[in-house]
């Protein structure tokens, strides 16, 4: 199992050819209280960088991008009734969707945890 990060503050947990995607602790902190999540439907295919979901906080709506190219296989239906899970447990129970990877080489461009921590330090 590997966990990677994007510059859009998403995390991707890779297990075989399946990736689970969510937003980072830092991202939820910046967003504030999450009040609504719009999730993609299963079997939707998405290119890397495509807008596939939306997270809305008390402040604003933000897009969630597909971190890699693939097909959405499942969305976290729990979030539609309990969007606050994104704040409470962003990197576990607050996951957004799972996708099948089309091209594992895309993972090489993503950040590992240390790189991501450096990235958010620079952004602050």
């Amino acid at each position, binding site marked *: 199992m590997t966990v990677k990060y994007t510059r859009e503050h998403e995390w991707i947990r890779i297990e075989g050819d399946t990736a689970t995607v969510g937003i980072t602790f830092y991202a939820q902190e910046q967003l*504030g*209280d999450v*009040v*609504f999540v*719009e999730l993609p439907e299963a079997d939707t295919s998405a290119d890397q960088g495509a807008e596939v979901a*939306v997270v*809305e*906080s*008390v*402040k*604003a*709506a933000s897009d969630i991008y597909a971190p890699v190219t693939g097909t959405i296989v499942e969305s976290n239906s729990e979030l*539609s009734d309990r969007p606050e899970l994104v704040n409470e447990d962003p990197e576990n129970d607050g996951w957004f969707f799972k996708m099948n990877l089309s091209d594992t080489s895309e993972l090489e461009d993503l950040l590992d945890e240390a790189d991501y921590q450096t990235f958010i330090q620079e952004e602050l």
Partner: protein
Amino acid sequence: MTNLHALVLESFHAERGAKFGPFAGYRMPVQYSLGVKGEHIHTRNAVGLFDVSHMGQLLIEGKGATNALEQLVPAALQEMIPGQIRYSQLTLNNGGILDDLMLTRWDEESWGLVVNGACKHGDIDHLKTYLPADVTMRYFDNHSLIAVQGPKARRILSELIPEAEQLTFMRSTQTSWNDHDIILSCCGYTGEDGYEISIAKQFVRELAEELTQLRETTWVGLGARNSLRLETGLCLYGHDLTTDTTPIEADLSWSIQKRRRTDGGFLGAEIILKQMTDGSPRKRVGIKPEDGKTPLRDHTILKNVAGSVVGEITSGGFGPTLQGPVAMGYVLQNLCELGTELVAEVRGKDLRCAVCDPIFVKQRYVRNLSH
């Protein structure tokens, strides 16, 4: 965030975990460490403290002031008693709104005005243009304004300022606190009982510190100020009111008293009073999505069920008290009836919604002290 004015209390707010954002030319606290949702709920349940010193505080006085002001606002001013406050709008010849404001009568020919921060310089120019030479205008840029809002504001603020206890909604008094002159007004923009306190800048830190010491108070930023006013159906200038919106379209007819409806005599009266009789082309309404979940944001397009564009959302978001989406916007007159089905275009998708009362959460002003 350069070229922005700093509030006198900037470091005080920063010490309380404030995150700042630009608003009306000021660096304003958007939220504190409690967060927008927590601050909103705290204000509905106890007491929220707000630094609204960006707002413009004006004093207009001199022979003819009352008549001159009546030419600029549709509210009836002559009938008001000293210490009474009325909400009104500075109207324009086209019937549009230059700003909305609170007017307090101090004396026969003496008026206190509180106008929006983002509009204050334009308002001052407008007033200068229309006020006769005998009428003077003073801009109190050396004063801060602190709002104390919530169902426990009356009880708790009375411990500091005893006059608060007897002051009812839309009444104001000039008094003192710790030997400093203050203006205490029973009004606000959260839909709750509460007050606004005007005080000279050099004493505002002293006041802020004492307010913070009172039990059940917390500082509240612009984020929650917005969701609080939105839930209780109050308009935000620049969003829900503009120079192209008339008071009738904005459903503010209640703020035009009887004599003014009959006699007119204010800028744009011809258009505004005609709309009052014949109806306006569009009207401000509340909008709720049928799914009960999707927040409708500002500028969301509204369509009728046949797919034609019929309006747009002017303010929208999430209401922490309602625990659901709250929005207001404008639709064509024939679609403004409660329950009318509409379609909102959200991120390219059609979302079914309905017209509703823009007051999502009941206002709880204290208009008399008998209960």
